C-alpha cells in the first residue's frame, strides 16, 4: 500500500477579528481538494499559530484577514516563523483588504495573497504547485 503524502494546511485568524466564515469556506474547499486542514480558529496570537504549525508539521499556513489588521499582524507572524527557524513553509493570506496593500504584504513575507473573490481552483492549484515541487 503506497501512500502519497497528504498536504497539511493550517488555517487560522489572528487578532481580534471575529469573522470566520471565509476561513471556514476555504478550509472546506481545501478538504474537498484532498488536503488535511488543521483549523485553529479565531483570536490567535502569532506565537500560538507558529507553535501549532511546528507541532503539526504543516506544509502551508493560511491566514484569513478581514478587520484591517493585515499590515500589523503579517510582520509579527513572519518574524515569529523566522525566530523559530520555521520559514520553509508556504505562507498565504486571504480575505478582504485593499488591493494596493498586496505588494506590501508580499514584501513583508507572504508568498501569495488571495483576495475575496479568488477562484477556488487558483488557491488549490497554487498550493499543490508550490508544495509538491
Amino acid at each position, binding site marked *: 500500500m503506497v501512500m502519497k503524502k497528504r498536504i497539511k494546511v493550517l488555517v487560522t485568524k489572528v487578532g481580534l477579528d471575529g469573522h470566520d466564515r471565509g476561513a471556514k469556506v476555504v478550509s472546506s474547499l481545501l478538504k474537498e481538494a484532498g488536503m488535511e486542514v*488543521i483549523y485553529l480558529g479565531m483570536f490567535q496570537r502569532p506565537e*500560538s499559530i507558529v507553535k501549532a504549525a511546528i507541532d503539526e508539521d504543516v*506544509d502551508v499556513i493560511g491566514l484569513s484577514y478581514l478587520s484591517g489588521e493585515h499590515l500589523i499582524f503579517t510582520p509579527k507572524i513572519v518574524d515569529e516563523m523566522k525566530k523559530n527557524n520555521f520559514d*520553509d513553509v508556504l505562507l498565504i493570506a486571504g480575505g478582504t483588504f485593499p488591493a494596493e496593500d498586496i505588494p506590501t504584504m508580499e514584501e513583508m513575507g507572504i508568498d501569495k495573497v488571495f483576495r475575496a473573490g479568488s477562484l477556488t481552483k487558483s488557491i488549490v492549484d497554487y498550493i499543490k504547485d508550490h508544495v509538491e515541487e
Partner: protein
Amino acid sequence: MKKKLNTSEMVNRLLAGDRRSAARLITLVENEMDDHHEVMSLVYPHTGQAMILGITGAGGTGKSTLTDHLIGKFREQGKKVGVVVVDPSSPFSGGAFLGDRIRLQSHSQDDGVYIRSLASRGYLGGLSRATYDVIRIMEAMGNEVVIVETLGAGQDEVDVIHIAHTCLVVVTPGMGDDIQAMKAGIMEIADIIVLNKADLDGADRSLRHLQGALTVGSFEEGEWMPRVVPTVSAANKPEDLQGIDELTVTIAEHQAYLRKTRAIERVRYNRVEQELGLIFKDELQKIIFKGLKGTGKKREYIESIIEQRKDPYSVVEEVLNTYLLPGE
C-alpha cells in the same frame, strides 16, 4: 520543499525533547516514508513508560474540552503531556477538517504540551493506522502522559482499548436509556464513563441508566468496576465547571488499580499483540502485492472472481502458496 534531515540525528533530537524533530518524525511515520521502520526501531527502546489515556465517545460529547481540562490537571502534577487527536478523513477526497485543536487552546503556549492532529485516512476503529507509532514517538519525546482522543465514535469503534491503559467513554444526557448502555461494544471498553454536560435536562435519568447498566454486568472480586463520573466541561464561568477534579482522581485510582493488580502487564501485552498483528497484516499485503506487480496476475484474479470462475478464498490460498510459501 523542506530540508531533509538525517534520521538518526532526528531521533536523537527527539529523545532530547525537541518538538520540531518529533513533528517531522510523525510526518515521516504517518506517510509511511522510506525511513519509517528505521525510525521506529530507533524509537522503540525509549518507549513504554508513559501513562496512556484513551478518550472516546460520539462527536460533540465534549471529548476535546475534557481533554483540555485533563491536560491542565496533568500539568499541575508537573507531567509532560503528549496529545493525539484523531478526526475522520473524507471518503470522497481523502482530505480532512481537523478541528480538535480549537478546543485545546488553554495550553497553546506551554512547552510541556505537544499536540498532534491525525486524520483517520480510512482506518476503521476510531484511530488512524499511524496512531500506534505516533504514541511511541510521543513517549520517546519524554511525555509522561499521552492522551489519545479518538474521532467521534459510534457503537463499535473500540480500537482505543488496545492502546490505552485507562479508557474514558464520554456520553451526554439524552443519548439513550439503559438498553443502549447495556449494548456490546463501546460501552464495554470504558474504565470510566464520563457523563458530560451533566447540567442538561435529563442528566439524573442518564446517570441512573448508566449506573444501572453497569451493575448488571459480571465482575470478579477485586476487579475494577467501571465508574460513572458526571462532568460539566464547558461553562462561561470557571466556577460552573463540574467534576473535573473527581475525574482526575478516578483516573489516578484506576492507574493505581492497574499497578497494584499488575493488570498493567496484561494491557501492555495486549497492546503489543495488537500492534504486531497490524504490522503483519500490512507487511504481508505489501509482499503479496509486490509479488503480483507486473505479472498481470492481480487483474486476472480479480476478473476471475467477478466472473465467478473463482472465489476470493481460493484465490488467497493460491496466492499465499505461490508468493509466501514457495517451494512447499
